[in-house]
């Protein structure tokens, strides 16, 4: 095999092997996945149950090491509740273990008393013995009890030091995001489908221009193959996205999301391309009309799935609406280490398939002419 001619096949093979294996087997960072109760009435001690996923203290126990708490191993030392915009907090040093799944128990005295505290959502943090934090934003709603108006508040009215949950410490593990949890790995499989579709459609657009410029039917067949395999990537992107949305956004197709609406229109335009192509029989007429159509809809497709969601006020997808994407909160260094190879690998694989389809269509075309 000539390496220069087949380089993208090797890129697809090696990169995807790396991405699939790494994406499946690398562990997730510990994180708080749940809490109960989620609503607390003040004026007394409340037992909080905090579920910690991939709890570091469980992991260390599994190795049979007894040096827990010497700074190297992480055990919970404090549970802290902080609300937005306040300078104080509820906290306790009494943290107990419970259950096999990394559940923590913390007794906190919630007394509002004569203080001017208002009902609010509080973020929960578990401080670990090595100074790191596990956090869950806006996890608990604390509400004043009817009789809780006298006496001293247990709310600590001291300026709390900044709790930094996103420290830049490089570890080979994926970030544990609220809601996403383990499914954050789908970033390497669902998102590159769209990158691949866009790449193939862009190539198709380029070859459609080439056809109109030079009139070579080979260019048209190449562009057609790219569009068809691009549509395959798009369909797989839709189905995988729906699967992912079902478990995280609790809906197969949350219709309020601007990105989904854009994709629905965009995919219909490309399905119309297939329809248009199948109705025309004269190869030159078909090539000319579908080339123009392909060039015409590609920028509209980009606008629908990339630009419109950015302009709209809100979206569930990162990188659109008010939400951020591709910054340090969405993509940490471990994610980047797998996401970029995934994009390149999937594009190479789809290009490879499209190229096979092109060669088959070319042979068929030559047979028809012979």
């Amino acid at each position, binding site marked *: 095999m000539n390496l220069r001619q087949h380089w993208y096949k090797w890129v697809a093979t090696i990169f995807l092997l790396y991405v*699939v294996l790494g*994406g*499946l087997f690398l562990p997730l960072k510990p994180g708080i*996945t*749940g*809490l*109960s*109760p989620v609503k607390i009435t003040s004026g007394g001690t409340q*037992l909080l*149950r905090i*579920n910690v*996923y991939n709890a570091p203290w469980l992991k260390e126990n599994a190795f049979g090491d007894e040096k827990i708490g010497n700074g190297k191993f992480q055990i919970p030392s404090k549970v802290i509740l902080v609300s937005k915009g306040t300078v104080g907090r509820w906290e306790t040093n009494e943290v107990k273990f*419970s*259950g096999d*799944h*990394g*559940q923590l128990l913390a007794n906190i005295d919630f007394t509002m008393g004569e203080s001017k505290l208002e009902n609010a959502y509080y973020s929960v943090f578990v401080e670990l013995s090595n100074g790191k934090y596990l956090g869950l934003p806006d996890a608990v709603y604390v509400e004043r009890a009817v009789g809780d108006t006298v006496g001293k508040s247990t709310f600590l009215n001291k300026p709390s030091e900044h709790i930094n949950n996103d420290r830049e410490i490089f570890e080979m593990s994926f970030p544990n995001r609220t809601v*996403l*949890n*383990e*499914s954050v*790995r*789908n970033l390497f*499989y*669902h998102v590159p*489908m769209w990158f691949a579709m866009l790449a193939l459609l862009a190539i198709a657009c380029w070859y459609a221009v080439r056809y109109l410029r030079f009139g070579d039917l080979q260019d048209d067949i190449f562009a057609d193959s790219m569009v068809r*395999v691009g549509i*395959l990537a798009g*369909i*797989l992107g839709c*189905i*995988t996205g729906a*699967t*992912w949305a*079902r*478990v*995280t956004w609790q809906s197969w197709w949350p219709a309020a999301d601007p990105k989904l609406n854009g994709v629905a229109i965009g995919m219909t335009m490309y399905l119309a391309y297939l329809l248009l192509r199948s109705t025309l029989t004269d190869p030159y007429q078909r090539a000319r009309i579908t080339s123009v159509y392909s060039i015409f809809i590609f920028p509209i497709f980009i606008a629908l799935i990339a630009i419109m969601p950015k302009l709209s006020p809100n979206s569930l997808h990162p990188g659109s609406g008010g939400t951020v994407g591709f910054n340090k909160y969405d993509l940490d260094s471990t994610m980047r280490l797998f996401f970029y190879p995934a994009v390149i690998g999937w594009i190479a*694989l789809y290009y490879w*398939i499209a190229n*096979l*389809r092109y060669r*088959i269509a070319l*042979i*068929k075309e030559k*047979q028809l002419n012979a």
Partner: protein
Amino acid sequence: MKQTITEQFDANAAEQLAQHNLMNAVYAVLIIIFVGILLYLFRLDRKVSKIEKQS
């Protein structure tokens, strides 16, 4: 410490939350992609067979 009924309920809910594992979504997505690509490859394969028969 004796647990009240509410506390027991909370414990069960918490346990369920802890076991709720989204890894299955990742497996499902990977399987969908590979099945989709394989189906397309089978279609291509059929096309090649047809051409082979004609020549």
